[in-house]
Every structure is written in C-alpha cells, then in structure tokens.
C-alpha cells in the first residue's frame, strides 16, 4: 500500500502544486491517474517514486519513506517514464545487467511479453524505433514483477494495434499484490483497463474511487434527444450526441463508465463530484 501523507510540493518554493495532499493506494488495482495538463500527474508519480522531495509530508511504500531511495523500496518499484534512454545493447544483455536487481524478475515473462509485441530478445535496443523502444521497456518493466509499477503516458507513441495489445498486456499481468498506476490524458486508451480512478485538479484529489463505486452512484449515457434532466448532474455535447451523467437510483440499471464525461465533470464541478462520491448526495437542482 502507498500512503501519501499531507504532501505539499512546489517547484519554485511558492505556488504549490499540491497542498496537504492525502491519498491511499491499495494493492490489487490498476489505477488511472487523470488530470489536465499541468495538474501535477507526473509530479505526483515522481513524488511516489522518491524522485522529487516534498516541501512537507511524506510518502510511505513498503513501510518506508520513498524519498530515502532505499534499495528495499527501489527493488519493488519500477517506473516507465514518458521519456527514457535505453543503452545500445541487446535486450538479452539489458536483462542480464538489470534483472538481478529485481528479485521477482521472470525471463519467461519477458520473452512472452516481447513475443506479444513481435520484438526480438536478441535484438539491439538502439535499432528500435521510439514506439518499439517503449514497448520493449514496458515488456521489461512488467517482467520485473515489482509490487509498484508506474507508467507515465504509456500509450504515447504507440500505434493503434499496439494500444489494443497494451490493454491486454497490462490486464494479463495484474495480480492481487500489485499496484499499477497509469497516468494519461488519453483516457480512451485505458478506460476499459482501469478498476480505480484518481482525478487531480487544482491542488486536490477530486476522485479516488473504484469504477464500481462510481458506477453505483452515477449513470452515464449518450443521447441524441434532450432528456428529463431532473437527475442529470452533468451534460456535454459530443460527436455522438449529448453525454449525460445522472445520479443513479438503486432501481436503475448500471451503465458503462464514460471516463471522458466524468473527467469533464470533475473539472467543472469538483465539489459536487466529491460530495456525490463521498455519499453526501448534493441537491442537483442547485
């Protein structure tokens, strides 16, 4: 479990990106970290890995402060950043020098992952395109079987078939003792994959809930016709019609989450979203 305790962080000493941020992240979930550009998604991920030093507060993983960058936490953490460098060696060599640092690393997993993306275990990493490098690095990251896997914009640079493979690939590696956190602004690429959503906006966490919990409280639907708006809490025009979010009654059939609408709802009415998801249902006629 990762505990973010009262984190305050700013890059320049004033104008904090986070102020007294608290967050608990449990094992066994694929978390989607969503937020606008500049909301602090990557910053939060870097804080969780101990790569940034908070002005105040601490982040605990494996019962240790991640900022200490201790081997016992580092060997259970892997980050796939948006930009990374791979050395000009073969994947086999890369594996030989890096795998010993990850106690649960599985070379069979790595070979299976590479095969899924049509990549060669003996191929030189320098000869790969940017997208292939990303896939190769993600294959290695998942084969490490670390308790915490963080991916920052993992679908950037992937072609459409690879994005489909990516979802299957991540889902197949999920276990009850792992935490996978995926930060992205391309919500369509990952919405079917997630079982937990974190939305950050303006120094604060607007949502930290499971998809089931969200869908038990909200209904999502798209209609070409205007509808009875008594229960509607959010609507926005989309190419397919008007996307609605309404409060769900127990008698209503559960709908499929529309992550894009939910995200927009969070940005426009964060307090209402918080109130709904914390069971203090607001008066939607406000």
């Amino acid at each position, binding site marked *: 479990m990762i505990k973010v305790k009262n984190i305050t962080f700013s890059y320049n000493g004033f104008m904090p990106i986070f102020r007294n941020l608290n967050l608990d992240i449990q094992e066994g979930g694929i978390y989607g970290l969503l937020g606008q550009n500049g909301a602090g998604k990557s910053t939060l991920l870097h804080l969780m890995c101990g790569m*940034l030093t908070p002005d105040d507060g601490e982040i605990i993983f494996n019962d240790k402060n991640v900022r200490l960058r*201790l081997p*016992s936490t580092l060997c259970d953490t892997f980050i796939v950043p948006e*930009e990374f460098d791979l*050395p*000009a060696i073969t994947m086999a060599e890369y594996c030989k*020098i890096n795998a*010993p640092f990850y106690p649960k690393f599985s070379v069979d997993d790595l070979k299976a992952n590479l095969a899924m993306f049509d990549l060669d275990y003996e191929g030189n990493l320098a000869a790969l395109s940017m997208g292939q490098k990303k896939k190769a690095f993600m294959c290695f990251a998942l084969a490490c079987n670390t308790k915490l896997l963080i991916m920052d914009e993992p679908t950037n640079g992937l072609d459409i078939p690879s994005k489909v493979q990516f979802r299957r690939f991540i889902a197949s590696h999920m276990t009850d003792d792992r935490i996978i956190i995926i930060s992205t602004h391309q919500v369509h690429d990952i919405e079917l994959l997630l079982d937990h959503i974190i939305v950050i906006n303006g120094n604060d966490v607007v949502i930290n809930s499971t998809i089931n919990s969200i869908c038990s409280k909200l209904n999502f639907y798209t209609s070409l016709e205007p509808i009875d708006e008594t229960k509607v809490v959010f609507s926005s025009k989309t190419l397919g019609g008007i996307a609605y979010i309404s409060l769900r009654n127990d008698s209503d059939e559960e709908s499929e989450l529309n992550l894009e609408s939910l995200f927009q709802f969070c940005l426009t009415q964060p307090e209402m979203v918080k109130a709904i998801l914390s069971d203090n249902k607001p008066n939607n006629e406000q």
Partner: protein
Amino acid sequence: MDIIRNDNFSFLRMFMLLKREWTANRSKLLMQGGILVGILAMIYFFVIQSSYEDDYGVSNLDDDAAYILVFVMAFCANVAAEISASLICNNLASKSGKINSFMSVGTPLEKYAVRFIIYILGAVILLFLAIFILDFIRICYVSIAYPNYDVKSIYTVICMEFPHDASYSIAMFLLAPSAFIFNQAFFTLMSSITPTYTFIKGFAVSLAIGVVANLFFIVVLPLFYWIPLTKLTDTGFCALLIFASVMLLITAAVFHIIAYYKFKETDLR
C-alpha cells in the same frame, strides 16, 4: 539477508551496479578513453619528432625530451583527470539520466562509489597506463632509430635524475599528487553542482579563484605582513610543503563529501 533488499552499503551490489554501468556505457567510455590516449599519443609523437635528430658523430646525447615530457605529461594528466572528474555527474544533466540514476537499485553511496571508480580511479589508472605504454614505445623507438641518444624513461627522470633533496622529494611525491587529487575533487564538486559544461565552468571558477588568491598573496598580504620565504630554512620549507599537501588532501576529501551529499540530495527538479 537478501543482498538486493539490504538497505545498508553492499560491496556486492556496488560491483553489480559497476558492471551494469560499464555494460550500458562501455562504447561511450571506451571512446572517451580512446580520445584521451590518442591526444597523449599525438603529444608524444610531436615531442619525439621535434626533439631527436640523427647526429652519428656524437654519442650519448642527453635525452632532453624525457625532461620535457615529464612536465608536459604532468600537465596533460591533470587536465585529463579534470575532464574525467567533470563527467562524474554528467548524466544528471538530463531528466531521463536522473530517473535512470535515482531508480537504480542501490544506496546513494553505492551509486556515487561506482561513478568514483569509473571517473576518478579509472581515469588515474588509464592515464598512468597510457603514459607508461607510450613512454615504453618511445624508448624502444628512440633506441632503434636514434642510437646516439642516452634514452631515459620519464619515470627514471622523476625518481633518479632530478636533484635529490628533501623539499624536492616532498614536492614531487606528496605535493604534486595532492594537487592532482585536489584538482579532481574540485571538478567532481563542480560536476555535482552544475552537471553541464562542467569543465569549462570549473576552469573559469578556478581561474577566478587563482586571480583573487594571487592578488591577495602578492599584492594585499605583503602590505600588512611579509612572509620571508627566502629566509625559510630547508626544514621550514619542507614543513610548509607538507602542510600545503595535507591541506590540499583535506580539502579534496571535503569536496568529495559535499559532492556526495549534493548527489544524494539531487532530485528531478
């Protein structure tokens, strides 16, 4: 206890990190080492070309080139060691380099030690080996091509040929290595503070410090207090050299400690 999960310093994990660093960067490191040896070889070639001439009428000519090379190589070794030390935190200049360094499984001390071994100790070993081999080639070549010369190795010149007095020995075997170590430590510190263009910035800072220090010792200090260096006895002069050497070594150690803490505290900002 599992070596990887051990939060204390581990030599085994440090050697694993060293192996990882070497394998991932060997082509870059070999190229840097190759350029360094190539420059030294060119200097040797230039000195040999300009210092020896065929004069079969005279034998046992003095090997002046060996004396020149002692000073030229001392200067080159210092510059090369400074360049190498200024690369110690070079990969912290980029975000991806920082992430790669921070997320490596090891304690900060192990990661710093790996860099120290490659860029400080490795540079010294490479330099001495390169100079030794180049000098050996020079001796072989000159012995065959110019048999009228009494050829000497630069190590012979350093140890045997210069006048043998205590202050010379201290200067040669204590002050010079201390200054060399100090130079490396200074550029290491500079690299931990500013990882980009470190050598140029370090050179500029040392130049500025040099100018200020010279002004202080030559212009300002004599106005208030005159140190009668010329009246120092041999023992006093030796003591002064030893004191200077010790101070250089202590300062170098302090620089390395500060560089380590700077390295440890660096984050992604």
